[in-house]
């Protein structure tokens, strides 16, 4: 086992974490500002991936595909916010879970109707194909590296948005006191739609970026959604910073676990058995991480609102 | 036995609690002796509710001790302290709103009379529970409203129900957080009379804004300002205390 291999796995973990952050940021923002738990967030991820794949294959341009994914997922987000989600803000979490579960069914089957059950494929753009040489002579896929950079830029952009802009001030006000923000004469309905669409666009972007590494298919958003839940539970629901830390933690632990645990068990049992035990345990590792965090901090690492 | 009579039921010493820069409880010492009503007064934001919450077990103090019947309460939760005999009412009524008044009190009777891990016998056929709860409702004058859901009771009736719940626990000390709040003059008068008789059952730590009630009931009064006890004494001592008049009573009357 070389250190180059470990660094490569670390980068893979980071890339996975960055992608989870794009998902988790929207979830945690929507929960922090509107108090809503949105299971259909994974559907918006799927919408982004499908929009990107469809536009990219039609125009031949991955970049137009990415623009389309942002536009389509933001539009889909705004549409469901106005038609359904808006009615759920004052309901209990059970209603929110069920209504957004219903939205998943509607989105998934609708997409299956439009695009069929077979996966679509999205190619990595030529510009980002091939490897990049990192210091130390390490070769790493340029596209994956680009995802890490995009994720870092988005995290920085979100930080600026929330700490430096008028919209950000309103978002923070909405988190701490909903009555106050209404009293300030801000159109709270519009603010909520914007926040929801922003979260949706981030999810759509994640879907489009990942679509080029994995296949684009119905149901692709659901495993990611659940991982994003784990991320925000670990980070503290409502905290963007928590989402970032949680996402990187989950990404790295999951990737390294899958890489290291089978090797670890090979030290004292035969290969086949070590691989099965190791990979079974690795698939549980992030949930065990979550349980451990909860024992120490039941409200996550960075609890919002105190 | 005589020695026990002079031991405080509740003894708070050097209690501190801060929320960020705000010192909500700033070195509080307080005692509650058998048979007395000890009123805790102070302006809004003085830290009365925070103190009550530390006694009841909702907030852990930063430092200091709370002893109840000689036992240090540190580390014990709300339910543990209730089992030990702290009977508490809330500033804002806290009831199982879907349940009738009777079933609310039955819950307290049930908690007092043994395990809640009984899965088969219907509670409404359990005469001990129903009769015991009914008796408590009679004591506070709610017997005619026994089958009304708590959500449909009037504000004053909910206050009475809270007291019935505390009574049903047969506590060793009462912790009453503004029982008169929003009661109206007539209701306050009745309740004052009722609480006066309660001190024989168990001593009362009474947080109250209604000064008529406080002066009528209290054996001793402590004045809390900015998290500190600025004075403790009998009704007359507190009435005559200049610091108290300036810090608190002056504000109240102006």
């Amino acid at each position, binding site marked *: 086992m070389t250190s180059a291999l470990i660094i490569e796995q670390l980068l893979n973990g980071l890339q996975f974490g960055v992608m989870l952050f794009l998902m988790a940021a929207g979830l945690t923002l929507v929960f922090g500002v509107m108090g809503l738990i949105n299971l259909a967030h994974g559907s918006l991820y799927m919408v982004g991936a499908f929009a990107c794949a469809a536009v990219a294959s039609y125009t031949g341009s991955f970049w137009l595909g990415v623009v389309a994914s942002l536009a389509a997922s933001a539009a889909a987000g705004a549409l469901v916010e106005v038609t359904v989600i808006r009615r759920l803000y004052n309901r209990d979490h059970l209603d929110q879970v069920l209504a957004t579960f219903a939205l998943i069914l509607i989105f998934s089957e609708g997409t299956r109707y439009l695009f069929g059950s077979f996966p679509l494929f999205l190619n990595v753009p030529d510009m980002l194909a091939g490897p990049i040489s990192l210091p130390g002579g390490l070769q790493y896929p340029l596209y994956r590296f680009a995802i890490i950079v995009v994720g870092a830029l988005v995290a920085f952009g979100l930080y600026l948005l929330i700490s430096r802009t008028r919209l950000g001030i309103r978002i923070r006000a909405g988190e701490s006191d909903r009555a106050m923000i209404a009293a300030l004469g801000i159109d709270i309905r519009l603010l909520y739609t914007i926040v929801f669409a922003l979260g949706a666009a981030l999810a759509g972007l994640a879907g489009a970026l990942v679509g080029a590494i994995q296949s684009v298919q119905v149901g692709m958003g659901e495993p990611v959604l659940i991982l994003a839940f784990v991320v925000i539970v670990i980070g503290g*629901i409502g905290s963007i910073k928590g989402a970032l830390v949680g996402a990187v933690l989950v990404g790295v632990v999951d990737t390294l676990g899958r890489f290291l645990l089978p090797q670890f068990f090979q030290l004292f049992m035969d290969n086949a058995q070590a691989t099965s035990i190791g990979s079974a345990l690795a698939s549980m590792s992030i949930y065990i991480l979550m349980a451990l965090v909860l024992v120490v901090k039941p409200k996550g690492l960075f609890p919002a609102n105190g | 036995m005589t020695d026990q009579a002079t031991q405080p039921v509740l003894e708070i010493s050097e209690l501190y609690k801060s929320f960020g820069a705000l010192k909500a409880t700033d070195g509080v010492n307080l005692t509650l002796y058998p048979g007395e009503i000890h009123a805790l007064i102070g302006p809004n934001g003085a830290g009365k509710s925070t103190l009550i919450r530390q006694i009841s077990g909702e907030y852990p103090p930063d430092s200091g001790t709370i002893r109840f019947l000689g036992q240090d309460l540190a580390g014990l939760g709300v339910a543990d302290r209730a089992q030990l005999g702290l009977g508490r009412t809330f500033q804002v009524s806290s009831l199982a709103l879907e349940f009738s008044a009777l079933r609310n009190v039955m819950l307290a009777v049930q908690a007092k009379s043994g395990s809640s891990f009984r899965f088969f016998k219907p509670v409404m056929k359990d005469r001990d529970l129903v009769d015991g709860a009914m008796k408590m409702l009679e004591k506070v004058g709610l017997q005619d409203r026994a089958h009304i859901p708590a959500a449909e009771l009037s504000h004053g009736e909910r206050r009475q129900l809270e007291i019935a719940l505390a009574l049903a626990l047969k506590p060793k000390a009462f912790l009453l957080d503004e029982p008169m709040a929003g009661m109206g003059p007539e209701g306050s008068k009745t309740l004052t009379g009722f609480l006066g008789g309660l001190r024989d059952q168990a001593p009362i730590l009474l947080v109250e804004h209604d000064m008529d009630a406080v002066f009528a009931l209290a054996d001793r009064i402590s004045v809390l300002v900015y998290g500190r006890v600025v004075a403790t004494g009998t009704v007359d001592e507190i009435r005559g205390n200049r610091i108290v008049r300036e810090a608190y009573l002056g504000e109240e009357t102006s």
Partner: protein
Amino acid sequence: MVRLSKENGLNCVLALALLAAPFVATALDEPFYITLATRVAILAIAGVGLNLALGLGGLVSFGHAAFFGLGGYAAGILASHALNYEPILSSPFELNGTTQMLVIWFVALLVSGLAALLIGFFSLRTSGVYFIMITLAFAQMIYYFAISWPAYGGEDGLSIYVRNVLPGVNTMDPISFFMIAFVLLMLVILFSSMIKNSRFGAALQAARQNDERLATVGIHPFGIRLTTFVISAMITALSGALFADLNRFVSPDMLAWHMSGEIMVFVILGGVGRLFGPVVGAALFILIESVFGGISEYWMFYLGLVLLGVVLYARGGVIGFLAGKEKHD
């Protein structure tokens, strides 16, 4: 004197209708409907389990598929060992599989109870959204474990070649198997009705309405909730064991989060906290599946619309619509 409330009357009608369904199906020579009725009865048991936690206790568990699947795998694993004559354990003592339903049910209850104790211990430290997400995450953990653990079929699942046996009953006969499910359904409904009216039930319902109040009278909400979570999981696991026997097949799908969502849907469609809510909910679910499923392969789309409609406009579910709002003593 027995006073029959509107809801109790409705419940009797529902129980009789479900009981009659397979016999009507036989008379009409439509044996497939016996299977549908059996599915309703079995899935309703899962719903009754969740309803205890969700309806009475307000514990929105989004991970009950874990218990449903554990029950299923208990049946599948025990049966496969017995049918292949392979002991489960050879040292330190020999432990063999079994095809006896009674033993299988017992193991299903035991395993799921232990799992629920562990999951509940962690997840009940939190509440609200945290609880929803954590129960979902733990169920997902078991799901991925089942997929990546190759011994019992992994992703492909595990077949049970012959339906397990119960003394004195021919379990391969569809009506007999339906009767097993039906009797168990009635028993768990009776059990949850008793719990609802008991001291434990009073504490549980109080914990849902106001856990501060419950603690203030001296009852620990955590212990009450954890016990409920365990009982609820065990009932759902029983349903899983029966479901495995109905299909003679178990797979990770039983553990998938869609299953958790579906069990929750049974409870909601029927009416949260209502005794027969899960029965109506499961029946409605199967009805939508077979009616819309016959028309369009995208039947889940319509299920989504129905569910959305119920959540937004018909909070009380079917029982709430027919029998009105629930009354407490």
